[in-house]
């Protein structure tokens, strides 16, 4: 019986299965097809921590969630409307997230006694009442897949690998998405293995056909989710790691400098190293160092040599870079330090997201060692944020900390590609030799920015010696003079503080620029805060959303802006770090709303607080 097509504004689908089930591929192909149809979307790949945990166990479950709609989508959705569970473990781990009444598709073929046991089920949940709250659809996907691919002569194991494509076919049918981009992708990917390609396409088609023709429960409807209102332009789905890497490369081109990345692998920062290692076409040099200290030191060495030095890591690796960062601050060399944050402290939760490294970014060094801190808020935003980090680094001769997180790094969103020719360049000129007979002072400063000039080895006449010991303001030579140290300290602080005048004034993302309640966020909480404020405003609550990209220094008008609200709440995926900085700087009673579970905020969690605060 053909299902009737129902138009929805948005939907949240979650694919869950064993690590070996190819859920990430399924999700990303669903994403591509959805993006190409013009819906807005946000995704959240939820990997297991282990490389390949034993099949069938709960800690081997891999999931991919996508929220897509005919409206602007800013989060991955609080609770899925549809959950696809490829085995008992996937069901066990994910069922809690499914919205009551939501559609639950399970592959009964994987619900063997052994698998139930491995997942920790004593009795088969399909045989009990425990799933009553959901619309349960039981399909033997395994069997259906084997049938669909039987002509390709694959072994049982290989044939079963096509299960994910069968599921994808069904979901594409359900949400009226096109199969063509997936077919094209499969054919390219398996160009050298035509049987595999054929089997996968066959499974995909079979799943799709199943939706069209099978006799399913009445609940099994077909949906249509339209395109979103988007600005005209060319769009592409990007992950944060991609956009950030492109932003760094753009920063190199805009400054006219070669990029030298020093990095050491660490989750979830490694994709930046990988992406940039594949951009040699643009002259990017990458160096996998022996550790994080060597990585930043090499970037500093490159900056000393006149390149744009970049280093990328995550919390524990950034901790190791603290001493060298102090050197970069002291010798005033440009450097972009990327921290892709993850759950802490210590090794913590490497594959989970958190924004608990803000303290470390702003305060985490010995001595008075200020540096600019910028945060990305979404995958696409990484591009612009990275360019800003490069611009400020070279203009102010300072390391810049660029904060992103595991969620942004791995998540994908449709992104309007920028017009590269329209971005203002910030070409660097190096120091010149002084006039004959005059001594070269490596610490000569620009009177406005207070940035020192940048001498480049290889240039005759600007030879000089510097290091991490305090330097004379007047000559750059070592100086132990008390007044000089005071002056240099003040200059270093003043230089960074002055950047406040060189960044956009703080705007209000939604709502009035004064009033009862401001919800203030940074980083990847942007999505849920934005949606929660929108929902609150739709309910008529007086609430504004302020999102801060520049965390140090703050935009010059931020204090005044915040002071014009009666209440300020600060949702953060940490124990209240931005809150500390706001309270110190502006002496406003910013109230923390903290979540430290390794999971992004749900819209509802923020909305609850908006309710409480805006109405009290």
């Amino acid at each position, binding site marked *: 019986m053909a299902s009737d097509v129902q138009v929805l504004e948005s939907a949240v689908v979650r694919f869950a299965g064993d690590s070996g089930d190819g859920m990430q591929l399924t999700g990303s192909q669903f994403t591509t097809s959805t993006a190409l149809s013009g819906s807005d979307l946000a995704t959240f790949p939820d990997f297991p921590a282990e490389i390949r945990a034993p099949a069938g166990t709960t800690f081997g479950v891999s999931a991919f969630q996508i929220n897509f709609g005919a409206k602007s989508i800013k989060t991955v959705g609080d609770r899925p409307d549809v959950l696809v569970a490829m085995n008992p473990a996937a069901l066990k781990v994910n069922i809690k997230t499914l919205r009551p009444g939501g559609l639950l598709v399970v592959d009964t073929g994987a619900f063997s006694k052994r698998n139930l046991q491995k997942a920790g089920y004593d009795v088969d949940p399909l045989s009990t009442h425990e799933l009553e709250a959901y619309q349960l659809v039981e399909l033997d996907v395994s069997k259906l897949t084997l049938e669909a691919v039987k002509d390709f002569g694959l072994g049982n194991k290989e044939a079963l690998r096509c299960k994910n494509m069968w599921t994808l076919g069904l979901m594409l049918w359900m949400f009226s998405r096109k199969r063509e981009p997936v077919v094209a992708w499969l054919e390219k990917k398996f160009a050298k293995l035509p049987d595999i390609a054929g089997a996968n396409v066959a499974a995909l088609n079979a799943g799709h056909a199943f939706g069209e023709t099978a006799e399913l429960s009445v609940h099994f409807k077909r949906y249509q989710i339209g395109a979103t209102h988007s600005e*005209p332009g060319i*769009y592409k789905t990007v992950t944060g790691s991609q956009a950030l890497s492109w932003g760094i490369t753009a920063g190199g081109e805009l400054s006219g400098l070669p990029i030298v990345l020093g990095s050491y692998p660490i989750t979830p920062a490694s994709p930046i190293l990988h992406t940039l290692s594949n951009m040699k076409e643009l002259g990017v040099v990458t160096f996998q160092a022996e550790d994080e200290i060597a990585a930043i030191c090499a970037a500093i*060495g490159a900056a000393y040599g006149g*390149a744009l030095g970049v280093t990328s890591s995550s919390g524990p690796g950034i901790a190791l870079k603290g001493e060298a960062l102090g050197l970069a601050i002291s010798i005033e060399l440009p450097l972009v330090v990327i921290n892709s944050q993850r759950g802490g402290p210590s090794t913590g939760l490497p594959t989970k997201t958190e924004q608990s490294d803000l303290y470390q970014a702003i305060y985490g060094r010995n001595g008075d060692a200020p540096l600019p801190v910028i945060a990305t808020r979404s995958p696409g935003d990484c591009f612009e944020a990275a360019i800003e980090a490069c611009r400020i680094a070279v203009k102010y001769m300072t390391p810049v900390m660029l904060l992103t997180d595991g969620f942004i790094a791995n998540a994908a969103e449709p992104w309007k590609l920028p017009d590269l020719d329209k971005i203002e360049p910030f070409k660097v000129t190096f120091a010149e030799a002084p006039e004959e007979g005059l001594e070269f002072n490596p610490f000569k400063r620009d009177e406005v920015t207070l940035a020192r000039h940048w001498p480049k080895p290889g240039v005759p*006449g600007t*030879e000089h*010696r510097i290091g991490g010991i305090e330097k004379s303001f007047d000559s750059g030579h070592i100086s132990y003079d008390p007044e000089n140290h005071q002056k240099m300290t003040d200059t270093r602080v003043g230089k960074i503080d002055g950047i406040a005048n060189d960044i956009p004034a703080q705007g209000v993302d939604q709502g009035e620029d004064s009033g009862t309640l401001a919800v203030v966020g940074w980083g990847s909480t942007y999505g849920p805060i934005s949606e929660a404020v929108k929902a609150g405003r739709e309910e008529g609550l007086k609430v504004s959303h302020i999102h801060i990209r520049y965390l140090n220094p703050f935009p010059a008008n931020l204090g005044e802006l915040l002071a014009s609200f009666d209440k300020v709440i600060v949702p953060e995926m940490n124990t209240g770090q931005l809150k500390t900085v706001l309270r110190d700087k502006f002496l406003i009673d910013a109230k923390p709303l903290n979540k430290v579970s390794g999971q992004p905020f749900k819209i509802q969690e923020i909305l609850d607080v908006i309710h409480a605060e805006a109405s009290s």
Partner: protein
Amino acid sequence: MNELSAPKANLTIKDFTSDQEVRWCPGCGDYAILKCMQRTLPEMGVTRENTVFVSGIGCSSRFPYYMNTYGFHTIHGRAPAVATGLKLANPELDVWVVTGDGDGLSIGGNHLMHALRRDVDLNILLFNNKIYGLTKGQYSPTSDLGTRSPSTPQGSVDPALNPISFALGSGAHFVARTVDTAQKHMPGVFKRAHAFKGASFVEILQNCIVYNDAAWKGITEKNVVADKQLLVEHGEKMLFGAERNKGIRFNAQKFALEVVVIGEGGITEDDVLTHDETNLQLARMLGELGGQADEPVVMGVLYARQAEHSYTDAVLGQVAERKGKTTLKDIMYGGQTWEVSETITS
């Protein structure tokens, strides 16, 4: 590369001497090394602007301040990493790394190891005074067993590291040794290190007159030099001693090198080994001589095996191979994109 450019005949020691007052203790061995470097650079035909000295922290690491070239006094132990980045940014520069036994082998051992393993085109000078000078005399990884120092008042209990063995174990391609008192020998070693494309490691035995005076006395005092130092040259017999009647032989029974005296027990010059600086196994054995009373400490280029490409060449070669083959725009606008031509509603 610099060694290929025409010597700047007009540069002298003065050109390489900075205007900073030298702040080592009077009598410190560092002075001799500094002077030798300032004197030898002009002979290499290098320019001031293409020469960079990168150092860590320690008395030895103050070296760059006194060279009228580019200089970077970084942080403790990290000079090899900084220098590697510098070479990746500009492979045309002549980069010298100056480090100490503490800086290079204690806190910085890992960076030194990897710079050597990678064969980054650096000239690495390790001033070995077997002590921490700058922090006032604590023992170091090269200090002799039993060294009494503020942190080991009853004497140190950990065996000393041999920098040469460590470098060779790390995969170094060029390893040499000289001593602060050898003003005639040092320039040649500097020149060889400079000419070598890849990581050249030079251990310089250096006297800290304040905290470890006489650490090298046993081999540097005038009357023992000939018997206690063996200067090796590639392709030449390894002879030493005031009368050059002592030599090094491989004892197959003991599977070790030993000292023989020509004329004693039927030994002739034929028994004495010829130095082959391309032989890794020999280099290791030579580097460890000096432990027994009759053994000399070996000076000169112990090992040199020029690789086809240095690390930086190879890295930058990969970049060069691809560079310009696409644009950022092509990358970004390539792949699966879609166009929104006007705002549409579902």
